[in-house]
Each structure stands twice: as C-alpha cells, then as structure tokens.
C-alpha cells in the first residue's frame, strides 16, 4: 500500500472530529445532522474512527429498517405502494435516499445509475405490448427500470465481474443499447462500444475492430420475446466463430454465453480498466481532479487478488472501505470540492433538517420531488444520454439555481416545517437568541464557517422579523427559522459538499 491511501490515524493535531465526520457523511451519503455526527465522532479515538467509517460504508444487502419504513408509508396519497410510472419510481428511490440507514447504498446506486446510464424514454418506446394500452406499457417499462435499479443496489458494492455480466444481461440495458438485436452476421455495435468506452475502459482504449469483435462475442445476449422482455441467451443468434478482442483470442464456446464472461475477464485484465474505475470513484466521492497517486493506489486495490483465483477481484466494498479510511480522503484539499448534484441538494435538505416522510407529504410529495429534480436536469432514469450526467460546474447555472432556491423556499413553509416541528429544534424557544439560532443552523446546514457579510445579512434578516408589527413571539421565531433555512440553502456555500 502506498502513502496516499494509508489509513488516517487521529491525532491531537489532526483529530477525528465533527468536521471530518460531516465530510464523510456528505460524501458517502446525503449528509447527517449534528446529533448523528456526534455519535459518529464518539470519543475521537482511532477505534471510534474505524467504527464510524465501517458503519457508514459496510452495509447489508437489505436495509430492514428502511424497508419497514417504506412499507408503512407507501400506499398513501403521496407514495404509491407499487410504482408504475417514471415519477413514482423516482419517488420511491428518493424516499430510500432520504431515510436509508446506510445511505452509501443509495449514493452508490446513484453512482452506478450514472455510470451504466439508461433512459426511461428510450426503453418505454420499445415496450409495445399490450398494444394500445399506454398505462400497461408504462408500467412494464417502470418494472424493467425497477429491476435494473435493484440490480445496481444489490450488486453495487460487490465485484465488478458479476456486475458487468449482470448489467450486460439486464433487459433494460439490452433494450436501451440494442444488444437484444445483436445477431450473428448482422452485428449491432451499440452496446459493445459503450461497454468498453463508458462502462469499463474509457475513450480511445480500443479500436473499431475491437468494437466489431466484441459485438460478435455478445451476439445472442438477448430477450425471450417482446412481451415478457426477460433475459434469454439465444444460441441461434450467436456468432460461433473465433473472435480477436483486445489482442486476445476468444475461441467459440458452448453455450456461447460463456464467451461473454471471457470478454469481461479480458476487459478486467486490461490495466486501464482499474485506473478508469478508480478515477471514476474518486471523481464521484472525493475530488473532480483525482490525485494521480491516489488513482494508482486505488486501482491497485481494485486489481488485488485476495481470493487467489488468478484474476483481479475488483471488489467495491473493500475498495471503498480503503478509500474512506484513507488519509487522502481527509486531506484539506478535498473538503468542499464537489458541487452538489440536484439529488444531493434535495435529499440533503431532508436529512439535514431532519424532515420526516409525513411532513413532506404535505405538498412536496415524492413524485413532485422527482419531477422537480428533473427540472434541474437530474431526473432519475432520465440522464441526458448514455454517458450519464455531466457533473461539477455544469450543475451551476441559472435554471438549476432558481429551482434549488425554490425547493428550499417550498420546504421552509408552515405545512412542512410545521410550528410543532420547529419547536423540536429549541424546546425553550421562542426565547432562543438569534445568535443561537444562526449558529445552530450554520452548523447543521453549512457545516463550515460563513463569511462575515453573510452573517450580517442573516442577522439583519432575523432582526427584521423581530420588528414585524402584529406578530407574536412564536410567529417571529417561526419566521426566523424559515428564513434561515431558505436563505442558508441559497448560499453559495451550501451548493458544495
């Protein structure tokens, strides 16, 4: 193990503290309020640090508490029990992000959705049965997307080999990139190209001949029919010749689907694959400009062969554990370097303010939230194209900022942040001082210092609420908190994580 990914060890001069815990939870999940951060910090020891990271990063396949919570809530007016449309499915996923016990599971699923991008519209267009029944067709397309999402959720922290094979055979992906039409003698190149260029190796790491040869390998990975849209390997579609792919020979096998596994092994054995995936993980979780040393070290972790089967493991749980325990992750230069995606922004607000599903049901229901995020260019299952979303500065533009501000304004209203809810922040309010209010919400939402000019404006805002004629003390208190929530979420600081 090199230097950058060696484990962080807390010390007096560089402690395990709330600042680092907030950084961890902002990145692996969607943020955590002060009470949870305090628990994660514990006594600040190395043991507490390791336990905190493991608690955030290692998760069981099924989040039982989340499933129970979802089952209890869904079926009402604001979230259906069974999603049959794009926005209801998006609503389900947003619910999971907001209330997951181990939010890395959802953040990682989002990473994989961005990585193995598919578009609902294109898949929906290929569902043509039952004829004339739009609702049933949409429901079927939604089911395909749901299965695709579940695949990413379940396999996202396992090994890349299994994940690549599974996504190659996933019906939503087969439809999206046309591999179900990939037949011997009439090769369909779309999936083969993107499998190498976008999903594993990166641009310009292969030749056009490799694209054609990989297309031949993947012939037969198809669907059973256009009604059921289930995966089926169809040997009659398969090109039974010898292929030459990335400098290696793929001899014909029986059944031909064994060649797909071999092609995946060939891809994983390319040095560029581990670097490409290491770089992607670091760009998503650490810094848009990945440190080259860190990329090399993380790539080596991906390539490790712990099970000694002669092939690189590409185990994501182990790799991410190394990353989130590393000194590199906690370097100052990596704090607040990522721009929040629209999903980050929306789910942040829910988690940091401690909102519950019942409160949100008042009007910003889950479908509405999914729709709103679509308006910001990050509709779940609606990436702009097969390359996923463009992140970073691209999220900062007029329409995005306007929608973010308006989401914060909508949340900061009496039907969601109810007076009773606001009293829970400061039980001895409305006597709580303005200074305390500001400090608490700065700590909760911004998680770093504000500029003097900003605190001046926010203090003046609170004073102006205090001077409102005809308002009771309690009303003034409510107005001040709504104002703080709305305005703090509109600061430039809050757009970074």
């Amino acid at each position, binding site marked *: 193990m090199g230097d950058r990914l060696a484990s962080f060890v807390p010390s007096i001069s560089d402690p395990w503290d709330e600042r680092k815990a907030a950084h961890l939870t902002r990145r692996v999940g969607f943020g955590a309020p002060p009470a949870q951060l305090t628990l994660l910090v514990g006594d600040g020891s190395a043991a507490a640090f390791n336990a905190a990271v493991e608690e955030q990063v290692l998760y069981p396949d099924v989040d039982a508490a989340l499933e129970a919570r979802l089952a209890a809530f869904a079926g009402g007016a604001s979230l259906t029990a069974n999603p049959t449309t794009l926005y209801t499915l998006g609503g389900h996923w947003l619910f999971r992000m907001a209330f997951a016990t181990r939010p890395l599971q959802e953040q990682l699923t989002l990473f994989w959705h961005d990585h193995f991008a598919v578009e609902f519209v294109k898949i929906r267009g290929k569902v043509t049965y039952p004829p004339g029944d739009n609702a049933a067709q949409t429901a079927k397309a939604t089911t395909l997307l749901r299965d695709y999402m579940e695949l990413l959720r379940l396999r996202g922290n396992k090994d890349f080999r299994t994940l690549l094979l599974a996504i190659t055979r996933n019906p939503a992906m087969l439809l999206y990139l046309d591999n179900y039409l990939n037949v011997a003698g009439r090769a369909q190149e779309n999936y083969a190209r993107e499998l190498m260029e976008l999903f594993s190796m990166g641009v310009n790491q292969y030749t056009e001949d490799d694209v054609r040869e990989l297309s031949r390998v993947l012939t037969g990975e198809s669907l059973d029919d256009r009604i059921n849209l289930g995966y089926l390997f169809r040997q009659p579609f398969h090109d039974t010749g010898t292929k030459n792919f990335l400098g290696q020979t793929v001899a014909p096998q029986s059944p031909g689907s064994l060649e797909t596994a071999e092609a995946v092994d060939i891809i994983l054995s390319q040095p560029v694959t581990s670097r490409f995936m290491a770089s992607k993980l670091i760009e998503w979780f650490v810094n848009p400009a990945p440190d080259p040393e860190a990329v090399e070290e993380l790539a080596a972790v991906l390539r490790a062969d712990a099970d000694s089967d002669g092939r690189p493991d590409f185990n994501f749980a182990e790799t991410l554990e190394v990353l989130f325990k590393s000194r590199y992750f906690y370097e100052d230069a990596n704090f607040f370097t990522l721009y929040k995606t629209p999903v980050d922004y929306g789910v942040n607000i829910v988690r940091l303010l401690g909102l519950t599903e019942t409160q949100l049901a008042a009007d910003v229901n889950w479908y509405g939230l999914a729709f709103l995020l679509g308006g910001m*260019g990050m509709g779940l299952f609606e990436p702009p194209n097969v390359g996923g979303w463009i992140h970073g*500065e691209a999220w900062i533009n007029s329409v995005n900022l306007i*929608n973010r501000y308006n989401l914060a*304004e*909508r949340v900061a209203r009496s039907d969601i942040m109810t007076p009773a809810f606001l009293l829970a922040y400061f039980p001895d309010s409305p006597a709580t001082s303005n200074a305390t209010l500001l400090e608490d919400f700065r700590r909760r939402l911004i998680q770093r210092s504000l500029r003097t000019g900003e605190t001046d404006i926010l203090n003046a*805002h609170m004073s102006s609420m205090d001077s409102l004629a005809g308002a009771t003390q309690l009303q003034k208190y409510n107005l001040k908190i709504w104002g703080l929530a709305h305005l703090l979420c509109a600061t430039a600081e809050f757009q970074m994580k």
Partner: protein
Amino acid sequence: MPLRRRDFIRAGLGGLGYFSTAALVPDWIIRSAAAIEDLSGENRILVIVQLEGGNDGLNTLVPYTDPLYNSDIRPTLHVPTAQLHLIDNLNGLHPALPALAESYGDGRVAIIQNVGYPNPDLSHFVSTDYWEQGRAPGGPNLGTQGWVGRFFDQTCGSAPDVDPLTMVGAGHSRIPGSLKAVTYSAPAIASVATYQIQGAAGLPAVIGTRRLNDLHALNDVPAADPAIEFIQNSANVAEASIAVVQNLSYNPAVVYPSTKLGQDLLLCSRLIHQPGIAPKVLHVRQAGYDTHADQGVPGSPGLGDHPALLIDLNDALGAFMSDLAASGNLDRVLILTFSEFGRRVRQNDSDGTDHGAASILFVLGGRIRGGVYGGQPNLSSTEDVMDPAGFIVPRVQKGNLSHTVDFRSVYARVIESWFGSQAAPGVFGQSVYDGIIFPDLPKIDFIRATVSAARTPWREYH
C-alpha cells in the same frame, strides 16, 4: 473567473431594494456594444440548433442521382427519389422537410455537405466535445470552453458591462457546451413558466420581498474562493435574466409546434423581439438522432425515428423563419445546425445506422447565399472523386463518408462574414486557421452580405 456585474446591477437598485412591486424591466438592462464582437452594425444574431446523437445526413439530403445511393447500401432505409423534395439536379430533401425545401427555393438555405474533421472520432462524447469546443484531434490545446465562449472571451471578455442575456441556452437545463466561456455564464432557461425565484409564498408580501432582497445580497458578498465566486456570479445572471424572461412582450402571429424544439425556438423569437435587450447567440437542442435501430420503417420513408425528428425540425424551423420574416428580422438572424457526426453509409440489420463521420449541416437566414456547398458525398469505397469546383472528395473510409470541409471553417466563416470579426485565428489557433480554415473558405461562401472588415472593434474606443 470573476465577473464584475455588481456595478451595473447595483446602479439600478435605487432605494427600494432589488425587487420592487412594479414588474418592469429594470433600466439597467442595457443594450451593450460589447455583447460579442459584432461589427455588422445590424445587431446580428446567431441561433445554433444542435441535433444530438449524430444526424444521418445521407438520408436528410439525398444524392438521388448517385447510383451508389441504393437499396444495396440501404435495403430498408433507402428513400425513393419520387418521395424527395428535389432542390437541384443532384440532391433532394427528405420527404419530411417541405418547409425547408420551400425556404431553399426562396434562397434562404445553404446546405454544406461533407462537413467533418480529420481522424473522425466515433464516440458521441469525444466528437461532441470537438464540435462544441471548436477543436479536433491533433490540434492545439485550446481549453474546454465552447468555440462561441472562446470567441466571447477573446473579444469581449474584459468588457465592464455585458448584457446577461448575451447568450442563452433556450430549453436547456445546463449551459450548452458551445457557449461555455471563462468570463461569462450564459443563462439556461428550461422553461419560462418556472423561471422565477419565489420569495415566501403564503406569507405577507413584505416578508417575501425581504427574503428576495437578502437572497440577492447573500450572492453579492465578496468571496475569495473561486468556486464560491463562480456560484454567486451564476446567481446574479439568473436574477438578471429572470427580470427579462418574465416580461417578454412579443407574441408572434405564427403558431409554433408544441414540441420542445418548437417551444424553445419560440422563446428564442421572443428574446430576439424583446426591446431593451441584445441577445447575440441563442442555442437550442433536439435530442434523439442516435438511430441505431428503427431509424426508418421499411417501405414507409415518412415513418420511423429519423423522419419523426425531421418533421419536428422542419416545422419548428419553418415557424421560426416565417415569424422572423414577418417581423422583418430574418436578415439579421443566422441559424446554424450541427451534429457530432453523420452515420454509416451502409445501414445495419436493425433498420438503423451506426455512428459515422462526415455529414451535412444547414445554414439558414435572410442573408444567406442559398445553395449546396462542399461537393457531393462520395459513396465509393474504392475511388476518390474530383468535385466540379476542383477539390477532391475522398472515398469512403472504414464505412464512413469523408469530409471536404472542416467544421471549424464553417464556424470561422460565421465569425468573419456574419459578425465581421477577425477573431477566428485566435479562436481556433493560427496554425489551424492557416492550414485548414483558410483553404476551405472559398468552398463555403454562404453569407450574402458580409461585413466590412474596415470598421474598428469596440475595444479600441475604450
């Protein structure tokens, strides 16, 4: 990348704060001479229409007399001559494009064939980057700004006051790549209806006004961190553009299609016709051209994914041009389409085509010298061809059409002959200008009323 907008924004604040009760366009939205270097004196505008996914040029403008365009290369996608809108004795427009054919007849459409770049890349993302950023493999490293963004940065980047609506992404949820600049953030306006900042709904107006004023003030606090500064500048642009977008007064007599493209071009029209602002570059996007499958329906050239897109393009551009013509503005607007590549000459067996290379693009407007430029496509994989104008159209390579006109030359022609600027060598690199663009220019003389280069650029007056 600091923008110094605060000075002219603050000048309009007066004593009432940023948002007064009267919903008028603030008088600080000024028409600025420094909103892209336009020496025409006519306040000319460029409208970019991005066809996203790779448009099949061969089926858009069909070389119907070419025996190599046949049912062998296109068993199910071949468009029969009888269905085409013939525009000359070599080419016909796809049946889905009657309005474009009519505009061509009026001399308002230039179609440039064989447009591409050396060593074409078949990746959507790489090739889109090239087209948006005005660069190509092996060329100089010019940064990741858009070509229009670079044109702006190099000519007007240090201007003290720039109209926030100089460039607009209409119907976009992010800044279009072509418009990305260092010294300027173009507003992206996904829809007019939602382009508004809420103060405090359900509460007394004085509270909402206070929130809006404080939100504005927060984004004016000086920042040392460049990322924070960037975000705040973008917020300022958003606020400035809202005031305009919520007060657009123009309603055309022409009916635009209700499609996204139609409505986005309607927004462009309303911005063009709005008094008191001076948009220079407007950008819209039409998605869906990556027709690997179901591009067409065998036996029905009017059906399939590609014809559906062309119908939308035809109707939307048709409405836009009729609108501009009716109001007398067609002469100061130039519409340019682009796509990251064309498609493979030979179709695949999913009734589609795979990624290609060279393709056509359209230039439309009232000051266009109509016609077909760039030669005919060469569908032979064995022989190069000499175009009647004397240049060589290379053979098909690796199944894809070869280019004769570099797309950067088209852009340079727009910069030089539409806006009258000498900035092209700086925007694309001197070596590219000398070696590639300059030799191409005689092939693409598609602007009728060029700008005199004798006029002095604005910056020499300041």
